[in-house]
């Protein structure tokens, strides 16, 4: 098992190198220049000389290959460089916001799993009944409603019906859990609803399939109570495909929080990403992309390990 994990972690390296190359090249191909935006963006007149000096300071005048090598060498030493806009280390810029985004993503996942598994199970067990139809309507709406719009509805409801609005400043969870949750539970809900809808539909369809399997018939023929048949025999099998979806969605979530963070005015990774792109802050964009790639790969590894826990066929071959 350990050597398997080691092997998978080794495989991560070429993936990350590929991502690094790709994002570096794509950024250089796109038009736009951080220095232009920074110095002339608001119409101020700056001499060419100043612009050139700023370029030189940021290393943008060096040959592309040198820039690439420098960046890659930095990556190898876990140094993401400094932001071209603020001049602060990229790691610091990201670190300050990662906690918030991660928390929202984790909470959204928890909400999704807690809602989706019971909902999907109910829907599958009472297939084509009123319960199933209600669940299907709820999940379809979850897929159809954009999270940001749902977020807006939540804010407006809180404001107009309860005359309350969530706190604007971020308090870390360990300082004041209540204040923290009061701010972050809403975006987590808004995002989690869609997430839950995706997972619930997956659970429903895979459980319906599993319930038709021969081994479920065997279990029923043993005279076990239906509750056990579902919980012990059917669900572990049905959850396997759902776990894959949960993992994929989680990884997408970190990158996909952009709009939701705007709506709830949260200073997270998503917002940082938008800023970085609109400012052509190459180093910051590259750092963020690398971070997302790492998260994506790690979550997938986690999913595979979880698979091994649930499925002995993966564990011992």
């Amino acid at each position, binding site marked *: 098992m350990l050597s398997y994990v080691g092997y998978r972690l080794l495989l991560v390296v070429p993936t990350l190198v590929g991502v690094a190359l790709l994002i570096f090249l794509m950024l250089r191909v796109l038009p736009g220049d951080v220095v232009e935006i920074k110095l002339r963006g608001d119409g101020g007149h700056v001499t060419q000389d100043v612009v050139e000096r700023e370029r030189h300071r940021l290393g943008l005048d060096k040959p592309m290959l040198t820039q690439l090598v420098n960046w890659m060498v930095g990556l190898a030493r876990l140094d993401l460089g400094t932001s071209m806009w603020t001049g602060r280390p990229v790691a610091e810029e990201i670190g300050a916001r990662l906690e918030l985004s991660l928390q929202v993503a984790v909470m959204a996942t928890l909400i999704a799993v807690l809602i989706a598994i019971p909902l999907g199970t109910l829907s599958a067990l009472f297939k084509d009944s009123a319960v199933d139809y209600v669940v299907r309507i709820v999940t379809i709406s979850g897929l159809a409603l954009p999270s940001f719009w749902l977020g807006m509805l939540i804010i407006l409801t809180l404001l107009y019906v309860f005359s309350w609005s969530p706190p604007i400043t971020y308090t870390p969870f360990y300082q004041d859990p209540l204040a923290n949750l009061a701010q972050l539970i809403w975006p987590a809900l808004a995002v989690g609803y869609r997430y839950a809808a995706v997972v619930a539909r997956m659970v429903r369809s895979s459980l319906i399939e599993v319930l038709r*399997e*021969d081994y479920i*018939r065997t279990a029923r*023929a043993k005279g*076990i109570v239906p509750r056990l048949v579902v919980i012990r025999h059917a669900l572990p099998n049905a959850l396997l495909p759902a776990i894959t979806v949960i993992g994929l969605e989680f990884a997408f979530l970190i990158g996909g929080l952009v709009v939701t963070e705007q709506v709830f005015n949260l200073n997270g990774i998503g917002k940082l990403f938008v800023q970085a792109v609109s400012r052509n802050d190459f180093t910051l964009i590259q750092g963020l992309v690398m971070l997302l790639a790492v998260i994506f790969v790690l979550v997938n590894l986690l999913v595979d390990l979880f698979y091994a826990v649930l499925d002995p066929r993966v564990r011992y071959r």
Partner: protein
Amino acid sequence: MSYTVRRGEIVALVGESGCGKSVSSLAIMRLLAEPVGRITSGSIVFDGRDLLCLPEAQMRGIRGRDISMIFQEPMTSLNPVLSIETQLTEPLVAHLGMNQSQAHKRAIELLGMVGITDAERRLRQYPHQLSGGMRQRVMIAMGLACNPKLIIADEPTTALDVTIQAQILELMKDLSRRLHIALVIITHNLGLVARYADRVNIMYGGKIVEQGDALNVFTRSRHPYTLGLMRSVPRLNLPRVGKLATIEGLPPNLLNPPWGCRFAPRCEFRIDLCGKPPDLVEVERAHHARCFRTHELAGLTSKAAVAAPAAAAVPAGAPLLKVRDLSKHFAIRQTEVSVLSRKQAVVRAVNGVSFDIGRGDTLGLVGESGCGKTTVGRLILNLESVTAGKIEYAGADISLLDRPAVLALRKKIQAIFQDPFSSLNPRMSVGQIIAEPLLVFGLAKSRKAARQRVAELLSQVGLYPYLSERYPHQLSGGQRQRVGIARALAMEPEFIVCDEAVSALDVSVQGQIINLLDELQSRLGLTYLFIAHDLAVVRHISKRVAVMYLGRIVEIADRDDLYQNPKHPYTRALLDAAPIPDPVTERARPAKLLHGELPSVLKPPSGCVFSSRCPMASAECRQEPPQVRDLGAHHLVACHKV
């Protein structure tokens, strides 16, 4: 339908697929999915109680406690994510209120009862780590767990090899007698019924058409369907017949069954009266049949009546296909963990196989699953590359051919596969399926010509040309297999590899397809390699037969020679294990069981591959692989002891 089972008795429920035998047994357990599978009327009295009137909670107390069920597919009937222990102890905890340590003890006892050694380790394992036979034993242990009074076994050995099948059924019979358990065996295999059942119920189209003591039903069949079934099974104990008797037509569609006798449309004794539903009448003591003319059928024999022509001698001359020292090894990764260490295991699927097939001949290739017979077929079809040895077709080594020659060869060598459903594209009509190779290879100049040829081919395999508009799912199994044959014939081949071509078909339909293959061979001069596991079917169709075990041919001889005078202990074991549909013969011969499981192809025994299961094995066998020796009259055997 009505039938009874007494304690310690074995009752068989026999019928072809879709005749309702499984449905009726699920009904006993009340496991049919409501509301689709509603039991509309009748009663199921078990131990004095009508099961249909019990509330679900009480019924649950009976399932697995008093009545247990053993299902067909050991591969899919066990839960893949739960350990054997969890699955085996579950009914003990649920019904007998045992705690974990008591249940564990009982589980070990149960595994011992069903002949699984090393029980402690097996309990910790998961289904995928066990072989098919082993899984079926676990299923039986699960069925026995709470000392039930009745066990319903639904095709308990259909998915297993003959030697394992014999082991499992002997075990079930022994347990039933010893523990006074009533046993209902549901099967389509008449041989099994003859060997094991005390009483028999023959089902057709959702009704029991004949019931009685096994001996009576087999020797004095009194229903036309039973007669037809008995005649259409190829038998090992009787001289081979020229043409198998068949039951023409197809089983009834139960969505809209004939109002009168359901067998009437296929019955050769049909009269006007048969338009009304017949009742089950007593024809003699303990023997009933559902037929108006049953008394007139008294004198008819259920044995095949067609005279047997002498087997044609194998023609001399250059063989069409010559296989010499053929080997195919697959390298597989042993475990996920060892990917770094690059450790690879080699499966010797085929190991030094040689044989010839003359033009217009049929070679039967028999063996149990995993013996490499399918791989031999794939090598000849040029679907796999040869590891060592060579295959010569019409004098040319096929591995040395250039591309155009390979394409030409592909036309000459065609294949018919086992599962007629999954080997036909569901989105293409029958006409498109057959026309495709015609157009691709330019055998038909235009679409119109292709259509004409399709119609010709369909009538050649006994299908109506209008079926070309249909899609595979609209056809029955037998019709689909005919389409498969028509597709192979479309290329005007010389040589056809039939890989388990009739294994998935019902007895009455199987006979039709075998006769068709026979007829096509004599009409078109085809040469067959007939790969199968059913010895009786192979005997019927082949001129020469080769027996394979773990990648090697252990014996090869002319058909009659091999069946009458088997030399290799494995061939003998196979013939002993194959039940014959005749209760008199079957009960007279002692059960000679081959012990043990098929060894893993990854670790075949050293020396002779059969030495681990062979009753005659000695130290020599375990060290030195035997050479193939010619015993004269083209009878070749690889064994030290012959």
